[in-house]
């Protein structure tokens, strides 16, 4: 075989280009094994093509390189690649999520405090209601008392006795409403001055001939009594009623020098 002629034919260039048939390729391969000149020529042609293709290679600042190939062929997991670009990006989804969570928290806290305020408001109102209810209850009671009292005083069996002021206190006056049937006397002491400290008014049933006083009771807690009407028992056949000022606790016999009011029961 004429090696030189074989080389000059140009078949080796086509061999490197990879455009020969399978048979031709095999032939060249065998000749290359046999003739070192052919092998050398093939390498020289290949080298020229390598230089040519290299001259048009994309010139990249950071070629992906074999690490990328390792990942692609499954020889290495893509650990490096994942890490880098993440941090620079603002993770709006996460920020929005956190913001929403904080807002929700604040909202819940606000609602909680609002609810507590409402609860305490309700409590205050409830307490006020109780006070009002108590007042209404008391007022109703007071009204009932007054009505009852009025009925008592209007009773046809009640005798009304005016007690006029005496020397010690001429302006003083009082009224006695005597229900003989029930042996009760209502003393209206509106017209008496407040007793001095340590003193108390005492009511007396009097028989005139001879003058015999019988104690009916004390006008206790005179200052704090609202309507100044006192109910006393009177089983006596009274001819007159008198009110004297006595030391606290009352006296066995009336101090006539401190007789404030006096009135006789009309005989009729």
């Amino acid at each position, binding site marked *: 075989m004429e090696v030189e002629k074989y080389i000059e034919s140009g078949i080796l*260039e*086509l061999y490197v280009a990879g455009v020969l048939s399978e048979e031709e390729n095999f032939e060249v*391969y065998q000749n290359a094994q046999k003739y070192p000149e052919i092998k050398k020529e093939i390498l020289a042609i290949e*080298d020229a093509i390598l230089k040519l293709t290299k001259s048009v*290679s994309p010139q990249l600042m950071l070629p992906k390189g074999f690490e990328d190939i390792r990942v*692609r062929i499954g020889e290495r997991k893509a650990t490096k690649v994942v890490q880098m670009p993440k941090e620079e990006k603002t993770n709006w989804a996460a920020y929005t999520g956190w913001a929403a969570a904080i807002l929700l928290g604040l909202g819940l806290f606000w609602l909680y405090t609002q609810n507590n305020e409402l609860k305490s408001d309700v409590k205050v109102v409830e307490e006020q209601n109780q006070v009002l209810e108590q007042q209404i209850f008391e007022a109703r009671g007071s009204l009932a008392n007054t009505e009852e009292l009025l009925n008592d005083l209007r009773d046809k069996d009640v005798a009304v006795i005016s007690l006029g002021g005496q020397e010690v206190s001429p302006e003083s006056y009082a009224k006695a409403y005597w229900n003989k049937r029930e042996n009760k006397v209502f003393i209206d002491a509106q017209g008496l001055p407040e007793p001095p400290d340590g003193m108390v008014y005492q009511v007396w049933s009097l028989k005139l001939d001879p003058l015999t006083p019988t104690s009916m009771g004390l006008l206790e807690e005179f200052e704090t009594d609202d309507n100044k009407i006192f109910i006393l028992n009177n089983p006596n056949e009274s001819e007159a009623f008198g009110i004297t000022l006595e030391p606290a606790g009352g006296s066995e016999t009336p101090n006539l020098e401190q007789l404030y009011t006096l009135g006789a029961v009309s005989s009729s």
Partner: protein
Amino acid sequence: MDLDELVKRFQRKDVMAFEQLYGMYWENICGAIHVVVRDKYMAEEICQDVFTKVWHNAETYNPSKGRFFTWVLNIARNAAIDKVRSKSYKNQKKNLSADYFVGILNRADDIEEKDENPIDISALKAMVLDLKQKCLEIIEMLYFKGYTQKETSKQLDIPLGTVKTRNRSCISKLRENITVGWK
């Protein structure tokens, strides 16, 4: 290490051997793809795909059917041409003409202006500048487009045998330029 031995180890799925082969040829394979697709990032992506394919098809390579580089180059050409024929590529690059390698010199200034693929073509220029247009055409067809001898003869309207001899003289001229330039 001897290339044949390296290729054998690669075929036995030796990653280190494959890494060496990748180191030897990645620029050339990426360059061949780049000439066709004319986008360096697209070229790199296809290039990586090609080497991945090479790894997965390692056992199909047979030295009796051609050079290892030629085998890889063939896979790269097919991948690049598939890309260029794809719809997405046509939509993206419809203003580009069909000539690849030949046009790269003519377009060089244009390309640099657009900053689309700013590559240093001074080495390329030194190699091919005094080559005739018909040389550039035949090299493009045979090495970058993967035309068969028959297709090339038909395309250039020259006899089949002339393809072989003309290519031989063109490559010789290229080798001459390289020898001058590299010394």
